[in-house]
Every structure is written in C-alpha cells, then in structure tokens.
C-alpha cells in the first residue's frame, strides 16, 4: 500500500526515559574497518554534502552487550525491574546473531527482568523502532496496569559490509538506545503515529533509482499523517528528530515541505552516522540534553526503512 495508515495513539502512552549508548571507538567514514570499500567519489559526497564524518563502532562486543550498555543508562530501571512487562528489540536486519543466541532474551535475563516477555520486532527496516514503541503502548494499555513498563531496545552491530555501507546513501554506526515506555506519563506523551509501506520496493536491499525518486513524497506523507492524526499540522512541530541517514536528504525534504531546516535535528549526523532503528531515540536524548525541547513542545520522530517502510510518531514533551 502507498497511503499512510495513521493508527490511533494508545491512550496516554509516553516515553518515560531514553538512554543512548555511543560506543567508544570513533571511526572516520574514510577509515572504516575492512572490507568496507566506499568509492572515493561517494566518500567525497558523503563528507561534503551529506554531513557524514564518523561513526561509533563497538568491535569485540555482542549485540546484547551494546543494548545492555544503553539500558545501563536508564536511571528509572534499577529498582523497577519488576514493573517491566515487555522487552522489545527493534531490528532493521531480521537476523543479527547466530541461531543459538537471542540478544533480546539475553538482555532480559542479564537485567533480571523476570516479569517481562521478550521479543523482536522487525520487517519495517529502520522504521521498526517506532513500531516497537507503538506496540509497547498498545500492550501496556491493554494490560491495564498503570505502573507497568516496556523496555524498547534499538541499534545493531554492523557485522558485514552490506550492513555498514548503503551505496549512495549513508554509513551505518553501532550506537544504540534504550527507552522505557509507560502509560499515564506526561513527560513525552505520544500524540500520533503513522506508518506506510510501499511493497514495490520490498526486495530492495539498496536504494533503487525509483525508490530515491519516491522517497521524499512517501516520507512527507507519513510526516503529515502522524501530525494530522493528532489534529495538528507540521507548523505545530517544534523539532523533527530524524533518522541520521544524511543531511542532504533532510534538507531537500524541508525545502519540499516548507519546514524550517533549523527545526530538523541533524547534530548527530556527523557524530553517529545512521544507526539502524536507534537514530530518533539517540536524537531525542541529545536534543533534551542540549535544551532543544521545552515542556509542551511537540516533536516528531521520523524514519524510513528499506523494504520500503516509513514511520513518524508525534510527541508532546
């Protein structure tokens, strides 16, 4: 389908807290570990026009290690493990570990979240992270326990060259983020969510010319749908927290939408690169830390995934 589905926001769902984890190893995009080989002309464009500079990598770690590192920064988790009902890992790539390893369950066990069910959400590419938040909200609301929480985990290890470099588009980093989702909170209240899948690109693992042509229109559609779902327009959005695919594509979209470019949070593009499903969550944490959001501000988390899925989620800070 190519029209955005704007699902009703589950009642009073909120992001209680978000914690990013930038791994310590900083790799300039021109010096990525072998065997990634970015053509020189593309590398120049990445640095000059796309705003990409470096990525954070986590060599020698497992997927569970980097997710646990993000969760370790959640101040609200210690002492509240018994309240966590769901641990949801959102993945761009369906398979990220050998078959005998289950990173999301390993996180659940190592955090001693004994009351939680653990599972993975995927098949919407990098848009799976917002799907996980929406799903967490629905489950928590359906359960009816106002104290219950869900832990959403995003970010992946880029084990292979095809995961580390998207030709013509971006370089992938291994930063991760963990978010606690609750009901009834007021701090980051979800107002609307929209998702769109265009199955014409279902077999793509790299952006085709047709996909690149359709991309801005489809992304614009899902941004508008998420805001309209809340009875608002893009003019009401104080800050757009994007996926960090590259600076150029977002500036083009801003121009197309008449949306002020300075209200798209692109600070992390040169720092983290594109980190699978984690970008909007990492950007939320950075934006809050930098004081870019005031109470009452509406912000839009937005992302696109190969496949091709697009998603946007509107919040009130």
């Amino acid at each position: 389908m190519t029209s955005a589905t704007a699902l009703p926001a589950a009642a009073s769902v909120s992001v209680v807290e978000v914690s990013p984890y930038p791994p310590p190893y900083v790799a300039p995009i021109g010096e990525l570990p072998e065997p990634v080989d970015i053509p020189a002309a593309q590398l120049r464009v990445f640095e000059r026009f796309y705003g990409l500079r470096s990525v954070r990598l986590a060599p020698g770690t497992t997927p569970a290690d980097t997710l646990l590192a993000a969760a370790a920064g959640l101040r609200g988790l210690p002492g509240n493990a018994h309240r966590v009902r769901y641990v949801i890992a959102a993945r761009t790539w369906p398979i990220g570990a050998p078959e005998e390893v289950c990173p999301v369950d390993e996180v659940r066990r190592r955090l001693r979240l004994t009351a939680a069910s653990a599972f993975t959400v995927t098949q919407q590419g990098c848009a799976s992270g917002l799907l996980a938040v929406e799903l967490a909200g629905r489950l928590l609301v359906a359960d009816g326990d106002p104290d219950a929480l869900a832990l959403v985990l995003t970010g992946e290890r880029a084990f292979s060259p095809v995961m580390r470099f998207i030709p013509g588009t971006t370089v992938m980093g291994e930063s991760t983020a963990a978010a606690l989702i609750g009901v009834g909170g007021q701090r980051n209240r979800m107002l609307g969510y929209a998702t769109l899948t265009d199955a014409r690109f279902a077999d793509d693992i790299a952006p085709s010319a047709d996909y690149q042509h359709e991309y801005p229109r489809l992304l614009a559609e899902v941004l508008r749908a998420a805001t309209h779902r809340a009875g608002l327009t893009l003019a009401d959005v104080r800050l757009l927290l994007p996926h960090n695919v590259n600076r150029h594509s977002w500036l083009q979209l801003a121009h197309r939408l008449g949306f002020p470019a300075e209200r798209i949070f692109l600070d992390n593009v040169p720092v983290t690169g594109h980190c699978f499903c984690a970008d909007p969550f990492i950007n939320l944490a950075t934006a809050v830390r930098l004081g870019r959001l005031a109470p009452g501000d509406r912000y839009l988390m937005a992302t696109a995934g190969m496949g091709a899925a697009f998603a946007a989620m509107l919040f009130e800070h």
Partner: protein
Amino acid sequence: MIHETQSDERRNEISAWVTDKVAGYLDRPPGDIAPDVPFAAYGLQSVYALALCGDVEDEFGIAVEPSLAWDHPTVAALAAFLVETTTDSPR
C-alpha cells in the same frame, strides 16, 4: 570573430571535461555520452550528480547549488552554464 572562437574553444573544453566526469561516474567511454541526452537517461545516480557538483566547485573555484545537475541536466546545458558563469563580463 576571435572572441567567438575563443568562446567556442572554451565551451568545447568544458564540454569535454563534463563528458569525462560523467562518463567516469557511469563507468562508460566518453564517446557514449551525447551532449544533449539527460544525465538521468544514462542512469546517473543522485550521489554522482552531487559528486559532479563537487568536481565543478573544485575545478572552477565557484560555489554551486547541490541541484546543479538537475538544473542543467545535459552535458551541453551544464557546459553552457559553466561557460557563462566562469567568463568575465565585458567591461
């Protein structure tokens, strides 16, 4: 007449330079690139259209919009733009 000849030479030089760059990005011989066929018709990817912008800035010492290759979408159109932009106005 002399002025026109110099202008033609410059246009030809720039056309050859643009053709070489585009052919390189398409991994095709320069002889395959016609001056009046849109870059998109050859399948020039957007990342290489931007790379061409960088090449123009480096070669001619001018700042151009990232939309350069879309605004001037053939060898002939881009060469004409570059001739006009990089030639001093008569005093």
